[in-house]
Every structure is written in C-alpha cells, then in structure tokens.
C-alpha cells in the first residue's frame, strides 16, 4: 500500500471509530452504505462487456451487443450504452467494477443462491446471519438511529440481517409518517409465543421510527428530478434519509426483473437504464451537497447468467458476475480478474473473486473493521 493511501485510510478509520458512539457527530461524519440487489440474477456479460472475446459472440449469436451499443471504458471492456451515468462516473474515477464475483460449488437456484451470497456461507452450509449483521450490531440505537438498517421500496429483509437487529422498512418517508402516526406503544402480552414477540418488536421499531422520522426527516428538500420508476423512487427516499439528521448505517434497495430467460435484450436494457438513471440523479445531488464521499453504493445479485444463450432469446441461470461499487471514496477502475470465456464449466463462468473478498474489503475499509470474519480473504483496492 502506498503511504498516501495508508494515511487516507487511517484518517477514515479513526473517523469511523468515533462515529457509532458519537450521537452529536457532525452531519458529514455520518456514513451510509447502500446495498443494491439486482434481483433475479443480472446478466453481467451484457452490462460489462468483454467485447474482444470471440466466445462472447460465438455463444451469444443473438444477444451479443454490437460495438455501437457499448461505451468503451477500457482496452477490453465496455459498459452497456444504457449505463451512461455509470460510464461518466467510471471515467471520472469514482466507479469501480469488480470482476467475477462468486463462490465455490455454485448453486443455480435463485432462492438458495441469494441465501449463500447474503450470508456468505459455503455452498452447502446454512447460516442464520447475514454477512453484515455483526457489523450492524455495533451501532447502538438512539433518537436519530431508530433502526440498524433500512429497507426501501420492495426490498426484503431476506438473509442480510440477524433477528436481533432492528430493521425498518419504508416505501416512502411521507407514507411512513402518515400510516404509522396512530400506532401506540404496546408492551402487553410479551412472551406468549415467538410470533407475538416478533410482532411486538416490529411495533416497537415502528413507534420509535415514527418519532425519529417525523422529527428529523419530514422536511428534507430534494432538488434533483428523479424519474418515476420504482428504483428512482427508492433512491430518492434514500437521498432524503442521507440528507436528514437520521443516522442509519445501511440502506438496502432491490431492483426486480433480472431473471431474463426469454426476450432478454429489451427487458435487460430497460432495467439497466432505470438503474442508471436512478444512480445519475442520486449521485448528482450527493455531489452538490458534498455528501458523495459519505456514501458507498454496492451492487450484488444471486448469480450471473449463462454465457451461452438459450433458444428463447434469453439466458438461463449462471454463476459468477461483475458488480459495481460507486462513491466519493471509491478508487475507480477494474478489480479482480475477469473470468475466462474460453474455460467454462457447462457454459458457465468460473468465478475469480470470492464474495467474501468483496465483503472483507467493505468491512475493513468502509467500516474500519480489519478483524472481520472474512479477513483471511483478499482485500481489493477499490476503497
């Protein structure tokens, strides 16, 4: 590591060590990780295109993107033209692409694979807690932090969190305040059974969050115009939370629809465009407010898609895939080795970067926890 980088990282680390306990921390000390789940299994090969690989064209006679559908960003790689904002961020150095994310003995079921990715388990191992649970547990709840994490829009708790964490789910701040204002605290009938305890806990979170959000986030002004899509709405609400005095370390957003078994081209392009538009508006205002450095956007999927297209102009479930990391602190560029298209396992990519490497990098460099459970894995330099 270069000396300059070391100093920079130490500075971030010391700032972060203070953060969780310092309630009155200055606004710009607050940091937010945004996990974006590209639900259904994003076709990374048509997002980050290895346009010099002949097998890309051989195995995808109808789905391979043509040169004029690609923004070239590196000698051998280009981004889908619909990712125009991310292309700009890449060129200005705050977008990283991590190649070949996956794990050993890949499972091709949506539901099992997302569990493996979110819990960072082995392929045949079942874990109860998400990869980020123990990190979130360090954040004590307080007036400005009514929950350890927030789900926005249609995103589900899924496997990311452990049961002891408080997870708040909202569709929009406005709607949340409106619908939760009549809920009263209710601590009666505890411990009758697990389901009732669970319901009571959700009600507790609801009451606390209503207070916090009404007080700190009801009047946040957004200047940028966001599109009228689910993903743009979700990022708009996330922006309100980030601009407010609320201090929630993790926000999860999901974009559905990436399971493109048939007629993939137009569906996939629309999804990428909607994602990219949301990122464009979101990052634009973060930059104007000087908050971009306090936000890290990280994408993931249950798997990538099959290299070889099927007969329905689509792709079946696959294995490894490339993902995006965006943020003011991100060192743009490509990380990890791109999987070979000449050495496939049943037409599927062989992963090159373990998901635990991804998580180790985020936990070490964003949360300042170098003793995390994945620290025997590599660290990438995108932060």
């Amino acid at each position, binding site marked *: 590591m270069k000396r300059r980088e070391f100093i920079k990282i130490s500075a971030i680390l010391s700032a972060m060590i203070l953060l969780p306990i310092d309630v009155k921390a200055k606004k710009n000390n607050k940091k937010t990780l945004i996990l974006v789940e590209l639900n259904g299994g994003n076709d990374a090969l048509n997002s980050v295109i290895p346009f010099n690989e002949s097998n890309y064209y051989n195995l995808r006679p109808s789905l391979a993107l043509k040169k004029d559908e690609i923004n070239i960003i590196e000698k051998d790689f280009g981004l889908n033209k619909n990712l125009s904002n991310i292309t700009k961020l890449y060129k200005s150095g705050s977008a990283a692409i991590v190649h070949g994310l996956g794990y050993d003995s890949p*499972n*091709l*079921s*949506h*539901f*099992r694979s997302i569990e493996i990715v979110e819990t960072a388990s082995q392929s045949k191992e079942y874990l109860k807690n998400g990869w980020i649970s123990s990190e979130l547990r360090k954040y004590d709840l307080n007036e400005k932090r009514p929950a350890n994490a927030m*789900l926005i829009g249609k995103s*589900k*708790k899924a496997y990311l969190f452990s049961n002891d964490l408080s*997870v*708040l*789910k*909202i*569709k929009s701040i406005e709607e*949340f305040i409106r*619908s*939760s204002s*009549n*809920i009263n605290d*209710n601590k*009666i*009938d505890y411990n*009758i*059974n*697990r*389901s*009732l305890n*669970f*319901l*009571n806990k*959700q*009600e507790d*979170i*609801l009451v606390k*969050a209503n207070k916090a959000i009404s007080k700190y986030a009801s009047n946040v002004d957004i200047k940028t115009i966001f599109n009228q899509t689910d993903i743009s709405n979700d990022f708009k609400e996330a922006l309100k939370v980030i601009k407010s005095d609320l201090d929630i370390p993790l926000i999860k957003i999901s974009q*559905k629809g990436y399971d493109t*078994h*048939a007629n993939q081209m137009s569906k996939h392009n629309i999804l990428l465009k909607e994602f990219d538009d949301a990122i464009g508006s979101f990052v634009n205002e973060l930059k104007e407010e000087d908050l971009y450095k306090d936000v890290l956007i990280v994408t993931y999927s249950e798997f990538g898609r099959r290299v*070889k*297209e*099927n*007969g*329905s*102009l*689509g792709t*079946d*479930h696959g294995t490894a895939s490339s993902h995006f990391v965006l943020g003011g602190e991100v060192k743009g560029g490509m990380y990890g080795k791109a999987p070979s298209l000449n050495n496939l396992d*049943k037409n599927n990519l062989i992963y090159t970067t373990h998901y635990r490497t991804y998580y180790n990098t985020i936990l070490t460099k964003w949360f300042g926890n170098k003793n995390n459970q994945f620290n025997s894995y590599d660290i990438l330099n995108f932060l």
Partner: protein
Amino acid sequence: MRIPLILFLSLITAFSLSIDESKHLLNRTSFGYTKEDLQRFSNLNKDEAISFLINQAKVKEVIKEPDNIKELSIFHGKFKNLSNQEKKELRKKRNKKMQDIKTWWHKMIFNSEYSFREKMTLFWHNHFTSEYKVVKSPFLMYEQNKLFRENALGDFSDLLHKSSQDLAMLFYLDNNTNKKSHPNENYARELLELFTLGEGNYTEDDIKEAARAFTGYRVNRQKAILKKVKKEHDYGHKTFMEQSGNLDAEDIINIILTNRQTSKFITTKLYKEFISQDIDNVEINRLSQIFLDSKYDISVLMKHLLLSNNFWDNRANMIKSPIEMISSMVKQLDLKLNEKDYKFISRYSKKLGQELFNPPNVKGWIGGESWIDTTSLSTRSKFIEIAIKRRINKKIIKNYNINTYDEFKNYFYATNIGDKEIFMNKKDVYITLLTKPIYQLK
C-alpha cells in the same frame, strides 16, 4: 393392542369442539369465522368437523363467474401490432377483467361455505405459481385458478401433470419457447426445485435433461389449447434421475412421483401452512408416508394433518396472511361489502404483500414472519381502522351482543388490556383492541 387403541382414539375425538378449538380450526383452515360458524362447529367433534370441512371442500359449485372472461384474452391477434393507444386500452380492459376475477375469488374466500376449498385453492396457487403481471391474460389466470379449485383436495399426481400443461404456466416459465436446438431451463428447474423435490434433491444435469423432455410444447393462441410441435421436441435419448430412454414430459413427472422426496416436500409445505413454520421431522415422515400410501390423495393427507396432535397443540402462534387478516375481519365483524369494497380490499391486500394472481416471484409467498415488516404492520392497522370506521355502526355493534372483555376475547384474539375496566361497546374500543398485534395471530 389394536382395539383398545382405536377405542382410546375414538374417545378422545368424541367430544365436541370447545370454542377455542373451533376458532383455531377455522382460523387455520377457513380464513376465520362468523358467529354462525362457531355455533355450527361447537356441535361437532374433531373427526366430524374435519370431515365436514373436507366434504364441503369437494363441492363443485361456485359463485357465478364474471361475464366474457375469454373475450379479452391474449388470443386476439398480436399485441405488438397494436398502436400505443390500442395497447393502453387493451391493458386497461384486461386489468378491469382481472379485477372482476379477483373480486369473484375474494367473495368465495369470504363465504364460509367455500372457505376451506378456497384456502386449498390459494395454497396451490401459491405452489404452482404464475403471475398475471407476466402471463397478462385474465382468461388464462382464471383457467389456472379453476384447475387448482377442481383439484384442491384431489389427486396430487393429476394436479401435477395438469399443471405442467397449464397454459398460464407455459407462458410464465417460458416453456412456450423451449425448443430442441437450445432448451430453456426455466420450467424444468422450478418443477424440481419448487414444485416437487425441493432444492438439493436433484442435479444440474437432471434439470438439463428434464428441460429437453419439455421441449416443443406450444400454446395455440387462437384455440387456447396446448399442442406439441414435433420438430421442436427433442425425441433423443435422455437420462433423468438414473432412468434412461426417450423420455417425454409425462415420463419425467412420473419419475418424480416415484421419488419419496416429492411426498415429503409437499407434506412439509402443507405442514408449514397449517400447523407451524417449525417443522417436526417425525410428523413429516409419518404424514408423508400416509400421503404416499393413499397414492397422493390430498384429502387423506389433509384429514390426518388436521387430526394430528401437532395441529391442535399449535394454537395462536402463526401470523395471519394479509388475505386471512382481511377475511377474518370481514367474517367476524359481519361486514356487508359492496362492489367498490372489493376493489378496496384488492388494493389493500396488494399493499400488504398478497395480491391474488400476483405472487411476488415463482417461489410464491413465504408466509410466517415474512408477512410482517414495519410498513406492512402499520398498513394492517390502517386497514382495520378504516374498515371499522366506514363499515360498522351502532346497530351492527349491538348485534354482536358482546358486553364484557371476556366475551370479546371469546370471539376475537385479544389482549388482556382491559380486564379490570368496563367494556364499552364502541367503535373506538374495537379499533384499539383489534389493532393490537395479538389480533394478527391465527
């Protein structure tokens, strides 16, 4: 030893149901209960009550279907040849038709004469999932719904075979474009993972071979029937789960049905729906053996499942689904609904995460704690509040004839909140008590 055991069993089931037992049975099987339901079941013992439900569920009669369901199906020309304005209008008409079908289903769900059959119909809808959002044809969703209803307590092997040829299913999991030259694995994978064996009980090669067997089946849009296109079907040699030959779709399903795991998988799912999300392996083994011995007779499995001690011991410890929550309100409070109310109910069940005909993905609704997050919990309260405010008046409340907290608790699941206070037969009291988390239990 056999005779005393039977004697003993008939003794313990001979007693009439207690009020709590009736509530439990109807909450779990029938989307809640009315006062009349509780009365009717209080005269039956467990055996009689369950036989009554099962016989009731075999009734073919339905509420009259909406008119002209077929008219707006996808079989009138090609969607992409329409102008934008025409597309918009067609979408609007289809959505309206779909709403009529939803209303029709909601009505049967709320009607105790049909409730258990509809509960099973919804179970199969959530098992062999299809989404209207993807299929886009109200007619095909209706036809699929009919398939689930007609086989709700019938022969599972029949249902499985028929579901594989269901037109909505063919569209939903892309089997309609599955062809010999480049098979599409979508249906084959979900057939093994979600419909029959469960994740981990097959190989990736099994999926590939099954996908080949399912090639060439196409929907004839004009006639709304299934046809087999010979040149698209793979007649080659296949090996699936250690059996080889020129296997076709029917062979694949028959091989799956001989696998012991299929019975376990379906039994486990029903156990989780009706008894508890925490499974009891000994019970699953026992019940799945009964299911197998009955040659996949769903009514036999359901009878034994509902008679099991585990069913009667696990009371008020599951979370109602949104449809169950809404329906139990409608039934218990004897709400009189108009056509607009059904639209409102459809909208709210969608908000709460359970829109009929639109499960969230191919795995369907997971149920249990996944129903509840901070948004859905506050939305449930909001629904209860609105329903009581708008549809209950003094006269209706008087008819409940509830005068004490004890009587209230006898009828609803409610907290001990006001034991020492005097019960007030007022709307506000109903809102306060029914928006407590305990009312969300079944």
